């Protein structure tokens, strides 16, 4: 590799990046310079070369019936909690965190609401995803307060003029999918439109033990009732280069109806919910001077939820909206690339259970550097950010180091600290068994990690270790009158190991490729009485494994996957274990035509038809499911 003086690299980088902003599509292939890779607008992951991140490329799973939750769960360090499968609530935990402590974004726009409770990944339409970026660790300094466990950024497909696709799928339990997208463009603009509909009858068979304390009695065959649902989505995005810069705009809307079946021993046959979300953003990036660029962004989000709950006569009704403004400058100085910015936001939620309408303003300012030494072989990334979230303010910080060692080997390490402000639900929600606690304080988290990586023509491998410490965690405890109330009651540590590897396709072996992601997680309760002190946190299994083997030729391909989750505890005292679970899936495709591509695919989930699978919270998971997909697509003109 040719050595390039650092100063020259960075100057060239800034210049090229700014030029790229006016010439290329958003999140198009980044500009590859000899030592540094930085696109503009910055990719969220690429913005921090020292971070612990996995990028899940959706192309790898093309034509497969996988939702956002399933794609995310292929990354190490991640646990997806699916409450019943088939379009039901799915939340993500990173390195043992709660769902509330993971910031979920769509094209960089935060989807977490001030209401709290994490983001339901099943509400994000899956068909137009380009990739999902998973960043692990206390990332508040880069992504804002709240990202204590990490960040999941769902990146939608870029507008590739001339490209289009249409897909239809049908399978078990009355599940079907229709989706389509098309992109147009000219010399200085491009646009993408996409729509999708997913629906399921949800009536899968399962086996249930209605007398769980006695062994030996037969399990009872059941069919899941009140489990249907549908999700519709729409995506419009475009870009235009002119007026000395580049404009990007995005509108994504989704609406869903889902029935809520409840646990088998407590069926809620009248429960259901309608929800919807619309997000929009407009970005403008321009070069101000040599080495200096500016990005400004305006965004908005509308959220809607109507729930019919037998347990809460009158149901629940939430309406919310958020507006945000953000500006960031990037400056290529002598030793690196400095980014500084500020944002202002406001969020408004209306719900009877919150006592009416609640608003929460937010302000933030940040500065982050990407310093390069030794000709770019050593990168240092300090970052600090101040967030004011309603009445709660605090600093987040991060320091990371990355170095290319020898040949394909590299190493990275980072440490960070951030906080999460109590949600409006935790502060004010008065509903059913839940009581509010307006005296809550923010939670905080420290994390540190390090990893060795190797990347070359044969593939990619990474092995690392991490440790996290959470303090003042907000947990619901039984309170007066048999109700539950949140308290800053918990302190916990998590440490573990993350390993991931993916081989490049071996052409001589029918395009054979393999990938694996493994996580070892050791959690420890650091606050409580003798009965719980030092015990593992509930629903945090020690081991998770995802492995995939695939072959892909010109005409056909096949894959097999295995998910393993080791035993875990369902209680704080570690008295009641939940057994380990294996899940196998297989699939294959036939390419009937190359251009436009016509592809027929089939996927079988829960191959062994284990009808006793549960999600750890007492909800049965689907039995064997078969989906057949027909996909028609045409690539665009972009390189």
């Amino acid at each position, binding site marked *: 590799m040719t050595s390039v003086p650092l100063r020259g690299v960075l100057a060239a980088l800034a210049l090229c990046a700014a030029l790229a902003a006016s010439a290329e599509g958003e999140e198009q292939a980044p500009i590859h310079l000899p030592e540094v890779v930085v696109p503009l607008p910055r990719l969220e992951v690429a913005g921090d070369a020292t971070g612990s991140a996995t990028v899940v490329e959706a192309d790898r799973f093309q034509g497969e019936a996988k939702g956002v939750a399933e794609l995310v769960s292929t990354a190490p360090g991640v646990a997806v909690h699916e409450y019943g499968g088939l379009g039901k609530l799915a939340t993500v935990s990173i390195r043992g965190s709660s769902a509330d402590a993971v910031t979920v974004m769509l094209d960089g726009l935060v989807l977490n609401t001030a209401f709290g409770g994490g983001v339901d990944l099943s509400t994000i339409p899956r068909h137009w995803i380009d990739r999902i970026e998973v960043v692990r660790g206390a990332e508040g300094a880069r992504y804002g307060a709240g990202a204590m466990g990490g960040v999941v950024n769902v990146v939608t497909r870029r507008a590739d003029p001339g490209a289009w696709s249409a897909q239809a799928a049908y399978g078990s339990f009355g599940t079907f999918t229709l989706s389509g997208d098309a992109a147009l463009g000219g010399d200085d603009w491009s646009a993408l439109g996409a729509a999708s509909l997913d629906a399921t009858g949800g009536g899968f068979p399962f086996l249930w033990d209605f007398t769980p304390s*006695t062994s030996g009695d037969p399990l009872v065959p059941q069919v899941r009732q009140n489990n249907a649902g549908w999700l519709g989505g729409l995506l419009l995005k475009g870009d235009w280069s002119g007026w000395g810069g580049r404009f990007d705009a995005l509108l994504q809307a989704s609406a869903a109806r889902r029935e809520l079946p409840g646990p088998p021993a407590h069926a809620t046959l009248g429960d259901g919910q309608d929800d919807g979300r619309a997000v929009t953003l407009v970005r403008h990036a321009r070069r101000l001077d040599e080495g200096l660029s500016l990005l400004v962004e305006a965004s908005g989000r509308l959220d809607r939820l109507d729930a019919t709950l037998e347990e809460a006569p009158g149901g629940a009704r939430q309406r919310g909206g958020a507006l945000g403004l953000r500006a960031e400058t990037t400056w290529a100085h002598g030793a690196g690339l400095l980014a500084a910015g500020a944002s202002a936001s406001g969020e408004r939620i209306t719900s009877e259970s919150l006592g009416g309408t609640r608003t929460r303003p937010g302000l933030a300012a940040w500065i982050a550097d990407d310093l390069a030494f030794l000709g770019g072989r050593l990168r240092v990334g300090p970052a600090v950010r101040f967030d004011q979230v309603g009445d709660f303010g605090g600093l987040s910080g991060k320091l990371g180091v990355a170095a290319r060692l020898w040949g394909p080997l590299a190493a990275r390490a980072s440490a960070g600290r951030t906080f999460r402000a109590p949600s409006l639900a935790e502060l004010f929600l008065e509903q059913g068994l839940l009581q509010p606690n307006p005296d809550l304080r923010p939670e905080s988290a420290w994390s540190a990690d390090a990893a060795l990586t190797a990347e070359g023509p044969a593939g990619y491998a990474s092995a690392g270790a991490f440790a996290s410490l959470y303090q003042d965690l907000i947990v619901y405890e039984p309170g007066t009158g048999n109700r539950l109330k949140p308290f800053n009651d918990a302190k916990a540590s998590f440490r573990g190991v993350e390993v991931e590897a993916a081989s490049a396709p071996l052409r001589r072996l029918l395009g054979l490729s393999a990938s694996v992601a493994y996580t070892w997680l050791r959690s420890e309760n650091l606050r409580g009485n003798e009965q719980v002190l030092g015990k593992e946190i509930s629903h945090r299994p020690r081991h998770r494994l995802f492995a995939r083997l695939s072959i892909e030729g010109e005409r056909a391909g096949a894959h097999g996957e295995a998910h393993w989750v080791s035993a875990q505890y369902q209680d704080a005292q570690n008295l009641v274990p939940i057994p380990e679970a294996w899940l196998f899936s297989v699939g294959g495709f036939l390419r009937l035509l190359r251009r436009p591509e016509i592809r027929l695919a089939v996927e079988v989930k829960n191959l062994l038809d284990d009808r006793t699978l549960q999600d750890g919270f007492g909800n049965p998971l689907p039995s064997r499911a078969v989906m057949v997909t027909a996909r028609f697509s045409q690539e665009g003109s972009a390189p």
Partner: protein
Amino acid sequence: MKTFVPTPVPAVLAALAAALLAGCGQELACPSDQAACGGTCAALAVDPQNCGACGNPCPAGETCRAGACTDCAAVCGAGRCVAGACLADLYVACFASDEVRGVMADLAPAGPPFRADNGPVSLTASGGAVWVSHSLVPTLLGLHPDRSVPLRITLGGSDIEVVRPFGALLAASDSGSGTLVLVDPVRAAAVDEVDLAASPGQFPNPLAPAFVGTTGYVPLYGSAAAPDYAEAQAVAVVDLSASATCAAPPCGSVVKRLSLQDPTLPGACRPGTCDAPGYPFPSRAVAVESPPGRSRVLVTLANLKSGPFGYYTDPAGHGRLAVIDAASGDALSTLDLGPDCLNPGGIAALGTTVWVACGASGTLLPVDASVETPVPGTALPLPAGFVPGNLAFCGAQGFVTDQYSGSIARFDPANLPAVAIEAVCPVDPVAGWAWAADVTCGP
């Protein structure tokens, strides 16, 4: 050219890990009346191993009172000293602090608390042990008054709301799974389990049963959710005659369901069991034999309507009793407990007088069950703010828990209206609350 770059990564990692782990100390959170002694919480006022200070044991023959060692026999009575503590007259389940506390008849502590599992919610004495069921973990814990190692039995369900003796077995109401579990404490295992749901998915929510011979009467509280009320709220009559020798469960079965639904008006409650728009919500049962050979089962009916939080919490009218005549084919009648008894729950018998804890009116109501039609007596008002929960009679004295604190009220039915109140359960150090969930007499 490939070159090796000296990197500070390992050093940075080591420094970070050291800094991180340095702040990882465990924090033992002790209840308000205890101190951390090493890795355990100790009640310095009454702990004979840590009397007045950590690591300060009392000599043999002495117990710890007010933080000082003193003669055990003088405090506990002759023959009532065990392991430096008194044999307790009654036991109290302290939900918030995960403890069971033994106390004397005057509500003074009998010794250091017993550790329980998560959310102790129900107590009963059986076979020389005090058995504890838990709301937040499906375990039964057998505590021995001599403070020997407790016996834990882990069940398969969730939320074991009530445990009661049934012959040599224990009967546990698994409210989460909707079953009545029969447990053999000798084998430390469940030997039988009866599904109480009328149909798969229905939520019966069984609470405190009573037994007449080998027949169980299980109040099914149902869910606080329409349209389940009418179907679910009932008293299940369960034949348990084969449970003690059950080899292939289920051996017990529901033989009758005494529905509290109006048979002529689906969705409405049976006349006399509630006032519209309320529902009965049967919760606790007691069996009374009067005259000898004739047993009746009395079940409290809360008669609740929807409250401000969307749950059925508010009285819809007077509290009621369901009266089931076991000697007459389980004939069901009802009794209006009057305006001085709202939202009744806890119930206990002293001879042929049944005492009912009326939560919303803050009263205890005696009901004479010796006569053909039980007759409510004069309500005993409790001090303002005391919300009576569960009842027990130990000797001639009555004890009742407060649903909103860790206090126990003591009363003498022969010397009314005097009531003494003592805080027994400590305040949780973080949540700042206490709850005396249940009380039972010592074995």
